[in-house]
């Protein structure tokens, strides 16, 4: 046992001292956690929506004003930029607006969307006909969902006012419609300020949904620990290639002691790496949950499964270069499959099932239990059981097939 610990201690110290380990094992995942977290936080960037009013009617101006009022609050993440004046400085509209300005801004992602109110919009509505507003979106792939939801929501209110006007005017003779339209519409718009039926929402965990770090933190930590620990295969094969293992076999100890020591060293480095990433994540704002034993259990069990897979991988490859590439391939495919890049809930059912072939999926599920549902050790036992089972199978197959020479 002492010999195993000595080898593990040596390998651990060597990994800790290597500049490459620090760079790839800690600095890179921390940076990626930060970038992904910032990008996935719903409230990080301002989304500019340009508005071109080709109608210039009272009704089109009313719609633009409604958008400004509803979407451009002080703390809002949206800014409405009408081309007819009244655009805030932040919009950065050019002094001379040409026919291509709107599309150029969209292409350069200076704006995320463009609302075009067509000519004849107001006349159609006053005549009791339907009308359409065009919404062009940029290649800003984060913006459409958020912006379109808000745009649709404001439009619903305008539609509500128009429905009120229409149903009221239908009770009047046709020659009274023109005179009554604005009166009813003004009153309807004012009435929306006090919605009789209000909707109040309450989340199980406060602010959890707007914190992109809660997705990026566990996702990046699991992915990089997985890749790094899986590279135990590269280490073992490289040691075999350059003859280090063979030299160690001349020592008075069992061969499996040497392999176990090396695996333990990599395992301990993985635990250390995971712990540091959790601390760094906490400093960035990741809410890991308050159950520390649960977090510790995930770290210990997930790293074990990854190490066991590393051992198995070492039995399947011939060269260290092959091991390194396959470790990277497995990490980069099993991470998105397991929900490290995006929430598993947006994935179709069959892909969720396939995804759970990845240890990372079980790790993400376990963190989800702790973070969102106030879970503890008992609640994550199914996920830990799955990881332990995977680890045991990988380990048994790895030990059985490992070539010492």
């Amino acid at each position, binding site marked *: 046992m002492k010999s195993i610990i000595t080898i593990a201690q040596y390998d651990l110290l060597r990994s800790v001292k290597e*500049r*490459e380990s620090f760079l*790839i094992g800690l*600095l890179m995942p921390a*940076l*990626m956690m930060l*970038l992904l977290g910032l990008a*996935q936080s*719903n409230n990080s*960037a*301002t989304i500019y929506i340009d508005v071109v009013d080709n109608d210039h009617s009272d009704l089109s101006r009313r*719609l633009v004003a409604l958008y400004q009022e509803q979407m451009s609050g002080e703390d809002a993440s949206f800014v409405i930029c009408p081309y007819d004046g009244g655009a805030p400085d932040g919009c950065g509209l050019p002094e001379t607006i040409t026919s291509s300005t709107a599309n150029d801004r969209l292409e*350069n992602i200076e704006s995320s969307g463009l609302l075009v109110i067509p000519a004849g919009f107001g006349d159609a509505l006053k005549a009791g006909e339907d009308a359409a*507003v*065009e919404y062009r*979106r*940029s*290649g800003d*792939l*984060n*913006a459409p969902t958020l912006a379109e939801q808000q745009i649709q929501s404001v439009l619903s209110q305008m*539609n509500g006012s128009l*429905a*009120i006007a*229409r*149903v*009221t005017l*239908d*009770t*009047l*003779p046709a020659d*009274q419609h023109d005179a*009554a339209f604005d*009166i009813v519409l003004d009153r*309807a718009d004012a*009435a929306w300020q006090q*919605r*009789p*039926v*209000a*909707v*109040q*929402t*309450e*989340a*199980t965990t406060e602010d*959890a*949904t707007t914190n992109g770090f809660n997705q990026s933190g566990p996702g990046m930590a699991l992915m990089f620990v997985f890749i790094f620990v899986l590279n135990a295969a590269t280490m073992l094969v490289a040691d075999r290639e350059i003859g280090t293992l063979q030299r160690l076999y001349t020592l008075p100890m069992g061969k499996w002691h040497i392999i176990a020591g090396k695996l333990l060293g990599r395992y301990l480095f993985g635990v250390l790496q995971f712990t540091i990433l959790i601390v760094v994540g906490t400093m960035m704002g990741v809410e890991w949950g308050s159950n520390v034993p649960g977090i510790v259990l995930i770290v210990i069990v997930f790293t074990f499964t990854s190490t066991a897979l590393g051992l198995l991988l070492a039995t399947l490859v011939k060269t260290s270069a092959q091991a390194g590439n396959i470790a990277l*391939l497995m990490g*980069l495919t099993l991470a*998105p499959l397991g929900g490290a890049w995006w*929430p598993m*809930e*947006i994935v*179709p*059912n069959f892909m969720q099932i396939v995804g759970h072939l990845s240890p990372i999926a079980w790790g993400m599920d376990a963190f*989800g*239990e702790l*973070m969102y*549902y106030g879970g503890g050790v008992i609640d994550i036992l199914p996920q830990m059981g799955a990881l332990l089972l995977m680890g045991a199978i990988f380990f048994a197959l790895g030990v059985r097939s490992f070539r010492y020479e």
Partner: protein
Amino acid sequence: MLAKIYAIAWKDIYTAFKDRNAILLMLAMPLILSVIIGLVFGSGGDVSINPIRVGVENEGGALGAMMQSAFVPGDGAANADFQTIHDLTDGEVVTDPDAARQQVEDGDLTALITVPNLDAYLSATPPDAAPPPITVYYDSGSSIGSSVVRSIVQSIADGWNTVFLAQQVGTDALASLGEQSGIDTQNAQQALADTLQNNPMAVAQSTTITLNETDLQGETRDYDALQYFAPSMAILFMTFTMAAGGRSILNEQKDWTLQRIMTTATPRGTFMIGKLAGTYLTGVIQMVILIVATTVVAKMMGREASVWGTHYVGIALLVLAVSFAATSLGLLIAAAAKTAEQADAYSTAALFVLGMLGGSFVPIEGLPDALSWLPKITLNYWGIRGFFALAYDKAQLSDISTHLLALAGMGIVLFAISLWRFNKRLDI
């Protein structure tokens, strides 16, 4: 000289495409990842999610009944009105609110909707007190599903608000119009009340103004995730190949191959140009293979949209430009490192971070305003955006000129710096 350049370049291309490990990194990985992403995100802009589990606690009243019909399929005609919601959700009637709240907290229910009985409040004109709100208690662990439920509940509530406000506003407006123009106010008010009573759904769901969502050209077109992720993965893994190309110079120096070549009548410049040409052409060939392969795979997956677009000149120019920028980047990383091992670590770290920053893993425009310029310093960003513009926006050459210029500019600057660094390094 050309023969020597050709010989050195050809040797590198041959070595790269004969190495199984290199093929794994260059072609298999981006292809596998593209397929996974293609399976995860369907085409047509839809994200296929499982039915969202919703509990409805109906405390009585007309609004509660409507909310129940919206989320819980029944036998009535209302099923047709709410078919879209039924397709998205899996609703159940809640009789034990405490147990249902616990289910939400455990993640077994995405949301619990509690609808108070508002009949008494809403029948008074004007309402004599602010009615209690509809509450939606949702699972924060299900950001997408809960957002869908909240949006649906708000939409139904607003439909109800429309009906209620129509009664209130319409009645008042008709009264004041009657005073001004002498219309029969009572008859008009009765007609309004009858309409709202007999057909409230038509008023609640009235959509006078529709929103047509289009692309830059004003056309309605669906977005296919592969149009973004196929280029993003291809470029990411091409940068790894280019870094390996730059690193090979260090390896040749380490193995003394370089020194041996230098003893022959091969000028240093010829050697460098040959190496760079080999690396660059390897990147170009890798991109071309991936373009063809992902197009074929997309067809096999039944995708209708063209993954890379049909502007072949634009695609070719972008391939040449992005490969050039990546070659220069790979060379710079190798030039900055002292050993091949160090270059390996530097390139892995740098290319992962630049890939993340450039949007290779997920679109990253959501960065805070102060950092929004950061993606633009990466070749991944300009390459992905250029290819996406060609495929999705059907962009023309003039539309991607900024992308081409940015990539060429990056390539030239990085190339100049790395050549200067390398020239010093190659003193033997």
